[in-house]
């Protein structure tokens, strides 16, 4: 999908971004769904808005070959994904395995099948 650096591309990008921002805002404010669902919705909307801004404002992937900007962006995105997901995974497991709170204690008893 070729998106030229034109007025219409900036207007389209702006309008779409505003729409996604407001959708996410009202999804939270109006409590349209429970915790985990609404978090998925707003993160999904953020990722879509990211792609919109990358395409319409930064024109990523529109350059002529070799597409070094795109290449570097994709490798950075992979590193970012790794840093965020792996940190959350590790810290979550760390919390579970060490010095648990009372609620985590109960979870552990349940998970490991320990009976007092």
């Amino acid at each position: 999908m070729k998106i030229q650096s034109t007025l219409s591309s900036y207007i389209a990008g702006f309008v779409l971004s505003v729409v996604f921002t407001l959708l996410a805002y009202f999804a939270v404010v109006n409590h349209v769904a429970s915790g985990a669902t609404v978090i998925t919705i707003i993160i999904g909307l953020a990722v879509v808005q990211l792609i919109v801004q990358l395409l319409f404002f930064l024109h990523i992937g529109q350059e002529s070959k070799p597409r070094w900007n795109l290449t570097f962006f994709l490798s950075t995105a992979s590193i970012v994904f790794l840093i965020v997901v792996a940190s959350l995974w590790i810290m979550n497991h760390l919390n579970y395995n060490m010095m648990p709170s009372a609620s985590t204690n109960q979870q552990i008893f349940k998970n490991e099948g320990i009976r007092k």
Partner: protein
Amino acid sequence: MNNAIKIDVAEDKSIFGFWIYLMTDLIMFAALFATYTVLHGNTFGGPTSRELFDLPFALIETLILLTSSFTCGLAMLATHRDDRNQVLLWFGVTFLLGIAFLGMEFSEFSRLFADGNSFQKNAFLSSFFTLVGTHGLHITIGLFWMLLLLIQIMRRGLTSSVMRKLTLLSLFWHFLDIVWIFIFTIIYLMGLV
């Protein structure tokens, strides 16, 4: 190779180099985001994100920054048309919107500090101020840069050197708006879920 092509190659190199810098900046922000997400529950008995964050306020900040990213795009279109007055106009508007954003952020920080909720209070606030503060620092530097380039445009006109620098600035500005999308989503929106 005649001079016109040489200039293009040099510009491409500096734009590519700046792009690589922006990618490393993104990695730094990712580390700050991961830190915030891990620590956001560590309030040490103090108020939580739900109690501290003003969502309508953050929405207005978001829309202001988004509009400034749009007007920056309009300014770059004007550089392609070699329209000096429009370039000055739209970068001027972008600058004012950036100042408005920064003013709002400063008032939010002041309010938090005044209530005793500074970065020294707990890990949650330390990571919040580091992440949002780093973004704000980037915006501040971007605004200084914008001011300097506005002066250069007024004094030298749209030379190829000035246009190259404006391209780099616009990349920087769009990038900051993209980071803010995630600050808004992960800190402010998720803070209230």
